[in-house]
């Protein structure tokens, strides 16, 4: 149940930029995440345990802030899909990069989610955020009533609105552009995942070959047999190095560019949602205007009222949306840049290490009788 807060605390009491999802514990099929945040004043940390349901609770609270003007114009930081342990291939595919490893990429994604919320000037004012990050008890589990933010609940007819022509060129352009980028980003993320999965397979194959070579050693005093055995052992070491290298390459890919592309893809979707909400409001507005025009004198005043209210809402949404879009564009470029730089740096380091390894093996081999 939601705690009663005596005073309104409009800002967060913790630092937003260094929230950590430090650990993930697995208990049967449930995953629990340990979240650590630094107090703003003084030293000290908050350590809280949260499950995915808690994250959803947070998200729902953020969605349902009807009293915040223009809330529908916010591009909500995207929450990853629910992690499932030992799950079907379909779900794994949905999770993409986030399903790899022992949930470390997933933790990173949750971390990003929380940091983005904490950094968002509208969202971080919501009490739910403070509770989520600082309360030692799990936040309430009551289901907040369904809201229009959940796309899945939208009727098919509503989907048709997606293509509705805009009145504002800025927004029309943004919608068109977003459509293209969403597709490209999703595709790029999926293709990169394929690359990583194959790299993992190669690492495994190198491991098998290395192990099998080890079994090829031939006993005996015979110098040629010994030479052969030594060569096999050496080769086994080489392939073991290759296995380690491939594993690192794949990990680097996941942790930098993989997460980056994944986030980009989900964020573009989040923008798409926001633009859609605005479009729906536009449709609603146009409909309200028509109703007001056609209304019989009896209803006229009421219809005008509705029209005015809708206009106001729409204007708020557009205002917030414009800000959000500008922020979003800046943030995503920065995010991608970081991802690319880190990716490159890590791969460069790994490649250099690998070259050193090969060199060492080569020297050792040449030195062998």
């Amino acid at each position, binding site marked *: 149940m939601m705690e009663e807060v005596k005073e309104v605390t409009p800002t967060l009491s913790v630092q937003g930029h260094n929230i950590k999802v430090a650990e993930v514990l697995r208990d049967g099929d449930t995953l629990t995440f340990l979240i650590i945040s630094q107090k703003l004043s003084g030293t000290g940390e908050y350590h809280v345990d949260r499950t995915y349901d808690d994250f959803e609770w947070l998200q729902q609270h953020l969605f349902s802030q009807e009293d915040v003007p223009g809330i529908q114009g916010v591009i909500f930081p995207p929450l990853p899909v629910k992690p499932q342990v030992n799950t079907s291939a379909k779900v794994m595919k949905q999770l993409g990069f986030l399903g790899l490893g022992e949930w470390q990429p997933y933790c990173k994604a949750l971390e990003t989610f929380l940091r983005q919320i904490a950094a968002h000037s509208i969202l971080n004012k919501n009490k739910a955020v403070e509770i989520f990050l600082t309360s030692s008890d799990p936040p309430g589990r009551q289901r907040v009533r369904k809201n229009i933010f959940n796309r899945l609940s939208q009727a098919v007819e509503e989907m048709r609105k997606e293509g509705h022509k805009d009145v504002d060129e800025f927004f029309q352009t943004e919608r068109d552009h977003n459509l293209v980028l969403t597709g490209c980003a999703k595709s790029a993320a999926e293709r990169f995942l394929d*690359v990583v999965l194959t790299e993992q397979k190669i690492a495994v*194959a190198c491991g*098998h070959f290395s192990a099998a070579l080890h079994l090829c050693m031939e006993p005996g005093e015979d110098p040629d047999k010994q030479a052969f055995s030594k060569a096999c052992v050496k*080769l086994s070491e080489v392939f073991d190095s290759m296995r380690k290298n491939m594993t690192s390459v794949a990990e680097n890919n996941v942790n930098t560019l993989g997460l980056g592309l994944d986030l980009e893809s989900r964020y573009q979707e989040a923008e798409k949602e926001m633009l859609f909400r605005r479009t729906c409001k536009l449709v609603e507005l146009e409909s309200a205007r028509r109703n007001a025009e056609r209304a019989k004198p009896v209803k006229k005043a009421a219809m005008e009222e509705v029209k005015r209210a809708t206009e106001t809402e729409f204007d708020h949404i557009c205002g917030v949306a414009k800000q959000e879009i500008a922020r979003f*564009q800046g943030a995503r470029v920065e995010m991608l*840049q970081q991802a690319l730089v880190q990716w490159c740096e890590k791969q460069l380091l790994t490649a250099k290490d690998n070259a050193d390894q090969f060199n060492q093996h080569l020297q050792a081999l040449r030195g062998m009788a």
Partner: protein
Amino acid sequence: MAASSDRNPPPFPATEEPGAGLSDMADGDSDEGEDIFVSNSHPAAVSRGVSQPDRVREEPPDLFSEEEAGGTPARSNGVHSDDDGDLFAEAHVELSTDKPGSSDRKQLSSSSSGLRPASSFAQSPAAMQPTSLEQLEEDEAKDSFDVDVAVTNPEKVGDGMNAYVAYKVSTRTSLPMFRSKAFTVRRRYSDFLGLYEKLSVKQSLHGFIIPPPPEKSVVGMTKVKVGMDDPSSVEFVERRRAALERYLQRVVCHPLLLQDPDVREFLEREDLPRAVSTQALSGAGFLKMINKASDAVNKMTIKMNESDTWFEDKFQEVENEEQQLRKLHALVDSLVNHRKELCGNTAVFAKSMAMLGNSEDNTALSRALSQLAEVEDKMEQLHQEQAASDFFIFEELLADYIRLLGAMRGCFDQRMRAWQRWQEAQSTLQKKREAEAKLLWANKPDKLQQAKEEITEWEAKVTQYERDFDRIGMTVRKEVLRFEKEKAKDFKSQIVKYLEAMLQSQQRLIKFWEAFLPEAKAIA
């Protein structure tokens, strides 16, 4: 040693390499002698030739290479005109693969000469330059370098289902038994098989390990007959060419096989009569043949009483080793397939990044993403090369040795058969003696004379067969020892090659990343 690439192979659809391909030293001249008898068979000439412009030959002082052939022969280039000047320009045999102590390798005439290592594969990276002055001197001194062969320039002859691929077989030698010092002939695959058949028939009694040629492949050849342009045909032809080269190298490396007139004829004669009975060797046919022979030997009624456990032990070892190599072969095959998959995935990913880059508004980001796409394209090529390295350096090596071990089992069987022949002769002799005794007793003088003659004949045979048996035993022992020595060298040298290739790949990869980093940082 400059790697000059005067000659650019005709543009080949699957390959886009910058002229690093063939280095043709000769100025358009002939088969005579300008040569670069250098070793190359760049594994990466698989479906896309690989451009390795900075690769210089690594081999140590190759007596024949005044100038260097760098780069990769686009041997994968199927249809290729033959008028390219220097036949030895593309790759060939390796004289020695390992540096220190490699000198033995060059002495083909000495008794330790062994199976030619499957060494003419991966082009080594620039990193390896001839090692030392002493090495150079030593090599100069070993002028007894007897025969080098190379198999190059696969060309499709004819059309449709009757088409075949002809290869250039070039030899260079200092041995007097050959008509000249350097010569070339054209041979087709069935000619190689024919040579093997002839050698098997003749040499089988002696216990030599006759190197087996690469196997037939109906599927592979059909594709080639239809057209040599697609990557899998190209790969097939390159694989076969390399295998034929290794096969011939092993044959000429064997001091006794080299003496065989059929071998000489194969290398020298302009027109070789078509080989006919080459049906035995399709696919797994070679090993099936050996196994069948083994079974036949096992079924023979007189079991050998092995006084010498060496043979029994060795035979067991050979069988075990064959099993292990098969396992390794399967594992490498799996690795090669994954690498190829990675190539495909990388290419597709590169395209998707290019699209993302194109759709991007932010200029610096767009540029970086496009660069990323290019880096990925380059990596795809690296993956191709790695796949080819894995394949040509290890997979083919293992396949060769599996077949060689099969041939070795064949030798053991030969010895068994020699023993059986001896035993049978002894038993026949015994019967003849009994017959003579009977005749003596029955007093039939004319038949007696004949009987005595037969006894003498069979006594001689028994002596002969006993000697044959001993001789084969010794030969088999020697062959086995030679094989083991060569195997150790071969594997070691292949591993060195592999590491060199890998090292070079990594260095290129490092360059790609270093070039990309500033692009990534420049995104504002």
